[in-house]
C-alpha cells in the first residue's frame, strides 16, 4: 500500500520480457567477442589460477592500476598510482567516499537532476543533500556559489560537490569548459572537495572532448571516480577512485571493512584484456553503436513526442532526459506506458526532494535501434493522449508550440533555463 513500495512494484513490471525497456542503464555487452572472453578465462585458469582464486590487496592489483592509468591517460589524466584504489564498481567508490567523509546532517551538493544511484547513497549516510540546477552546460556554477554562501551564513561547509560533468546521468548534458574551470577554481579558492564521477567520458559521439575536472585540478581537490562498466563490462564490477593520500587512507580502511578486496578474478580479466586486446578499438565500436541508437532515439522523439515536450540531445553517454508539461506526472505516466509495454525511469528518482515529476530518463544504450523507435513511438502516444485529455479538461488550446527561444532547435533542451521554474 505504501507509495514507495508501490513504485518499486511498478519498476518490477518494467522487467517483464515483453516490455521494451528504455528504463535501465545497461551498456551493450552483446558485441563483446565470446572467443576473446573464452581465451582470456582459459589463460587465467592456466597461468594464474591460484592468484585469481585468492584474496588480493585491498587497494587492488598493481596491474589493474596500470590499466586504470591507461584509461585515464586516454582523457589526459596522469594520476599517481599510489592515489588509486580499485573498487567493486564505481558505485562502491561513491559509497566509500560518503562513508569516509559524510556524517549525519552534513551537507553534500550535487546536480539537479543527479545520478539516481547516488541518491540512496547520500540518503543512507543521512547527508543533507542540496541539488543545484543544471542546464545544457551542466551545473549552474553561479547557483552553486549562492548555495555555498548560504551555507557560509549558517556556518556550514559541504563535505563535497558531486558531479557527473560529461554526458550526465540522467540529463545527458555536459559541463562546459568555462564552467569546469570555474568549478575547479572555486574548489581551490574555498578548499572544497569535488567528486567527479566520469563513467561516460570516453563515450563521445560528437563535439570536442573536454578535459575532466581531475585534469584541470591536478588531483588536489578533485576526487575522481571511474569504472570499467561502460567501456568493457558492468558484470565484472570493477571501478576505481583516485583521491589525495589523507582521504585515500580512510577509503582503504572503509574498503577493508566493506569487502576486504575487489574480485581478483575480474581484475585478472581486465589485466588479460588490456594485455591482449586493443581496448580502445572496442570502445570505438561501442561509440558507433551508441551514436546510431542516440540518433534513432532523437529522431523518434522529434517524430512522436508532442510539441509541448522538450529533451536533451546528448553528445555522448547513455541517456536522454525529456521534460513534459507540468501537469503530467511521469510516475503515473509509467503505468499508462506499461499498458503499451514500454518503460522509462520517472524523473523523481533523480531528485531528493520530489522535483522531476514531469521529467523522464530514456536510455538508448540497452536496446536496438528498431526497439528504440518503437518504444519512443509508444511513449509519444501515451504522452499525446495525456496532453489531449488535459486540453479537453481545461479547454486549453491544443497543439500550441512549446515555448521556444531564439536560435534553439525545435524541442531541444530548454531544460531549466534561467528564470524558468523547476516544475
Amino acid at each position, binding site marked *: 500500500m505504501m507509495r*514507495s513500495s508501490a513504485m518499486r*512494484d511498478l519498476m*518490477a513490471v518494467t522487467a*517483464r520480457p515483453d516490455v521494451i525497456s528504455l528504463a535501465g542503464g545497461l551498456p551493450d555487452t552483446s558485441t563483446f567477442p565470446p572467443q576473446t572472453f573464452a581465451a582470456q578465462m582459459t589463460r587465467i585458469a592456466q597461468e594464474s589460477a591460484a592468484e585469481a582464486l585468492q584474496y588480493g590487496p585491498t587497494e587492488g592489483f598493481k596491474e589493474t592500476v596500470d590499466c586504470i592509468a591507461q584509461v585515464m591517460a586516454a582523457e589526459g589524466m596522469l594520476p599517481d598510482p599510489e592515489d588509486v584504489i580499485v573498487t567493486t564498481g564505481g558505485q562502491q567508490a561513491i559509497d566509500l567516499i560518503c562513508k569516509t567523509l559524510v556524517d549525519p546532517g552534513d551537507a553534500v551538493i550535487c546536480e539537479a537532476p543527479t545520478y539516481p544511484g547516488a541518491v540512496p547513497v547520500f540518503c543512507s549516510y543521512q547527508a543533507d543533500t542540496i541539488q543545484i540546477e543544471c542546464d545544457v552546460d551542466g551545473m549552474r556554477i553561479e547557483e552553486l556559489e549562492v548555495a555555498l554562501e548560504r551555507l557560509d551564513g549558517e556556518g556550514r561547509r559541504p563535505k563535497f560537490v558531486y558531479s557527473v560533468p560529461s554526458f550526465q546521468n540522467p540529463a545527458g548534458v555536459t559541463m562546459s569548459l568555462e564552467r569546469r574551470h570555474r568549478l575547479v577554481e572555486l574548489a581551490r579558492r574555498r578548499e572544497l572537495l569535488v567528486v567527479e564521477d566520469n563513467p561516460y567520458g570516453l563515450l563521445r559521439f560528437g563535439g570536442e572532448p573536454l578535459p575532466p575536472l581531475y585534469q584541470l585540478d591536478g588531483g588536489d581537490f578533485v576526487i575522481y571516480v571511474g569504472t570499467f562498466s561502460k567501456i568493457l563490462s558492468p558484470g565484472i564490477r570493477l571501478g576505481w577512485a583516485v583521491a589525495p593520500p589523507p582521504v585515500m587512507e580512510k577509503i582503504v580502511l572503509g574498503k577493508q571493512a566493506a569487502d576486504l578486496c575487489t574480485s581478483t578474478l575480474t581484475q585478472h580479466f581486465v589485466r588479460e584484456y588490456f594485455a591482449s586486446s586493443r581496448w580502445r578499438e572496442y570502445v570505438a565500436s561501442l561509440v558507433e553503436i551508441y551514436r546510431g541508437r542516440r540518433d534513432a532515439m532523437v529522431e523518434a522523439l522529434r517524430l512522436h513526442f508532442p510539441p509541448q515536450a522538450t529533451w536533451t540531445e546528448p553528445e555522448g553517454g547513455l541517456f536522454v532526459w525529456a521534460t513534459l508539461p507540468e501537469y503530467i*506526472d511521469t510516475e*503515473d505516466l509509467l*503505468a499508462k506506458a506499461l499498458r503499451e509495454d514500454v518503460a522509462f525511469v520517472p524523473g523523481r528518482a533523480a531528485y531528493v526532494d520530489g522535483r522531476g515529476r514531469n521529467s523522464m530518463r530514456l536510455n538508448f544504450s540497452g536496446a536496438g535501434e528498431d526497439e528504440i523507435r518503437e518504444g519512443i513511438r509508444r511513449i509519444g502516444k*501515451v504522452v499525446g493522449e495525456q496532453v489531449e485529455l*488535459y486540453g479537453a*479538461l481545461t479547454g486549453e488550446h491544443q497543439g500550441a508550440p512549446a515555448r521556444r527561444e531564439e536560435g534553439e532547435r525545435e524541442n531541444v533542451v530548454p531544460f531549466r533555463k534561467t528564470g524558468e521554474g523547476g516544475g
Partner: protein
Amino acid sequence: MKVAVLKGGRSLERGVSLRTGARVEDALGRLGHDVLALEADAGLVKRLGEERPDVAFVAMHGPGGEDGTAQELLEILGIPFTGPSVAACARCIDKVLAKHEMRAAGVPTPDWFAFNETAFRELGAADALGALEERLGFPLVVKPSRGGSALGVKFAASWFEVPEALVAAFSYDDRVLLERFVEGRELAVSVLGAEPLPVVEAIPAGGDRYDFEARYEIGRTTFACPAELGEAETAAVIEAALGAYETLGCSGFSRVDLILGEDGPQVLEVNAIPGLTDTSLLPQAAEAAGMSFEQLVERILDLALKPAAA
C-alpha cells in the same frame, strides 16, 4: 493435496503478487501439500490442464487475477479455487460498480461521480465538473476505478487541482471516480468465510491528513490491530464491512477498507484478493485472532473446497 499457486501476471501489482505467492507456497509446503508454483503467463492454462491440481490458490492482485479473469479459466477447467467467485471479483475490482451495488443495498459509501475518458474527449464532460464543488465539495479524492494499490489515487484540494489529478488517474484506467473526502480513521476489516477478523487501523504518523502522498510513504503509517474502538463503533464497522462483503457476493476471504467518520463508517472499497505478504493487513488481522499464517492458508483452502463450510 496438490495445490497450484497462481502468481505474477501482468498487472501493476505483480510485485505484491509474487511476494504473496512465495509466502503462500512456503506455508503450503510446511503444511505438507504438494505445491505447484505457476506464473500466470501464456502457458498457464496448458500447465493447469497437464498438472490437474486439486485446488488453485489464486495469489494474484489487480486486473487479470483479481477481476475474475483467472477465476473464469479455473471454472472452465473445473479446478476449485480460493477467494471470491468470478462475479464477486468483477464487482469488487470495479470501484464504480461496487459503489453502485453498495449504495443500492444501503451499505454506506461516500458520494461520488464517475467518468470515463470518452466523456471528456467526446462529450464535453469537463463542463460538468463545475457541479462537483456543489455536489461533493473540496477536498475530494480522485482515483482510477480499477486498481488495488495507492497508485493513481490523488487528492484535489481545490478546483484547480482536478484536471491534473484526472490526468494521473486516467493513466491507470479508462474510468475514474471523484469521491467525497471523508475525514476519519482509516480501517480495514478482513473477512474469512463469513467471519470478520479483528479490525486493523492505519495510523498516519503525525503530519497533515490532507497530505495524501505522505500517507503512503514507508514509515509514515503504522498499523494497530485490533483497532481501539468502542463496542458500538466496532459493531457499526463490522456491520458495514459484512454488508459490503455480502452485497458484492464475496466468499472465501476479502478485505473491506473503510473510513470511520463523524457520521459512522463509510466503505471505500472491497479488495477481493488482498495481499498476504508479511506486511499485509489480512495476515495481521488473522494473527490478532490467534491464527498462524499456516492456519490461515489451510482455512482459505478449506473454504475453497467446501464452500458450504463457510
